[in-house]
């Protein structure tokens, strides 16, 4: 397995060894930033992905209204579930599209040619996917609050949504990179993603409904720990195996 090493032509003899040691780390961060920024800039101009995710998310909430008869009584118990199903569905839409764009126009090959560690590409994509997902969530929350007259703006819930989205995009980005390279790409991602991302959804739903129903912190803590543990473990795994997924 040959991996392009980080090389910097500007690293001349004039620089002190200390500066040379610093270089790869900043280069790595800059590469992550560049990949993420490229996605965000492209999205800022076309707004294809965000508008699709957003409209889809609102439609899902609309459908839930009729499917579950969201009256005042049931609302308190199912709000967390409805929210997370919406985020998960809208999330797969975004993940699929964001990776398909790279694959279709050969952008992924271009990215792979860049003289940076490949995990930088992974983290860049994770950040842009995470930002898209968070933007959708930030818009869905007030919409849901207004439509169903429940206050969703609680700091605890925001924390849960952030933790859940991090884990979801960490695994989702890895799996969508695989699914876009398969023949049945569009249908494959949810099938691959949902069974392995289940712990995130269980913990996030439990923690969210805990916050919404004003449960004790001791009851919510195990779920938060689970979320944090999952985020750390799967970010680490994706970091280690991403090379194998993009290798030619």
């Amino acid at each position, binding site marked *: 397995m040959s991996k392009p090493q980080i090389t910097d032509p500007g690293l001349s003899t004039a620089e002190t060894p200390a500066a040379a040691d610093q270089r790869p780390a900043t280069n790595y961060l800059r590469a992550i930033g560049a990949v993420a920024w490229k996605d965000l800039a492209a999205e800022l101009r076309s707004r294809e992905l965000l508008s699709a995710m957003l409209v889809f998310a609102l439609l899902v909430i609309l459908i839930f209204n009729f499917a579950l008869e969201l009256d005042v009584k049931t609302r308190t118990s199912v709000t967390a579930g409805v929210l997370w199903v919406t985020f998960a569905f809208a999330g797969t839409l975004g993940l699929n599209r964001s990776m398909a764009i790279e694959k279709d126009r050969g952008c992924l090959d271009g990215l792979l040619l860049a003289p940076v560690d490949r995990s930088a590409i992974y983290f860049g994509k994770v950040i842009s996917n995470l930002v898209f997902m968070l933007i959708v969530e930030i818009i869905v929350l007030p919409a849901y609050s207004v439509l169903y007259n429940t206050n969703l703006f609680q700091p605890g819930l925001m924390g849960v949504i952030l933790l859940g989205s991090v884990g979801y995009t960490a695994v989702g980005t890895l799996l969508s990179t695989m699914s876009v390279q398969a023949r049945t790409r569009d249908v494959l991602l949810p099938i691959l993603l949902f069974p392995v991302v289940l*712990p995130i959804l269980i913990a996030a739903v439990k923690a969210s409904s805990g916050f919404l129903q004003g449960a004790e912190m001791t009851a919510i803590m195990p779920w938060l720990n*689970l979320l944090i543990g999952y985020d750390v473990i799967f970010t680490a795994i994706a970091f280690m195996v991403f090379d194998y997924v993009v290798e030619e």
Partner: protein
Amino acid sequence: MQPKPRFLSVLDIVSVILLAVATYLALVYAPTEKVMGEVQRVFYFHVAAAWVGLLGFVAAGVTGIIYLRTQNLKWDIIEQAAVEISLVFFFIAIVLGSIWARPIWNTWWTWDPRLTTAAIVEMIYLAYLMLRQGIEDPDRRARFGAVYTLVGAVSVPITFLSIRLFRTIHPVVIGSASAAAEGGFNMTSGMKTAFFFALFAFTVIFADLFWNRIRLGYLAQRVEQLKLKVMQ
């Protein structure tokens, strides 16, 4: 084309005999359980099938990691064999469990940690097979398969833990049972004989099927290579 190894043929026959004996022990030899009656006899094969499913699951995860380290297609064939066998045996375990649960729990299915986790494992296996089906290049197919089994192998225990934070009603016959479990019992010596023999028999059957499936994988690979040669 290599001939079938002699030992494998012997193992095939031994497996069939062991299965027959295990069936006899489970259905005739073991005493009838007092409370649950005849339906309890499902237990022997249920646990044995789940055990084999678990063996396959662990084997798939380990061979996935080994494949990623060595990039040797041999390990990919072994991994796929483990996944397929595990898929079938977990399915058998789920079906047998349902048959037992209908009279005992009064339902075919409940969202208990073990049942749910077994169902999730099946889903992961199906996704794994669909992923493989969609990729033609053997090296890439092997790499993606290995990555996905690794992700699955790590996520399944976490899923189990997270569902376990709810209460469970699945009985724990071996080890200590929780107070909420329904349908637990203590094994008599006759039951223990049938139980451990079923475990042993299924382990041998697992080894036999595993070996046969790996051999099939090699043959399939050979056919693919010959096809390519003919086309050129």
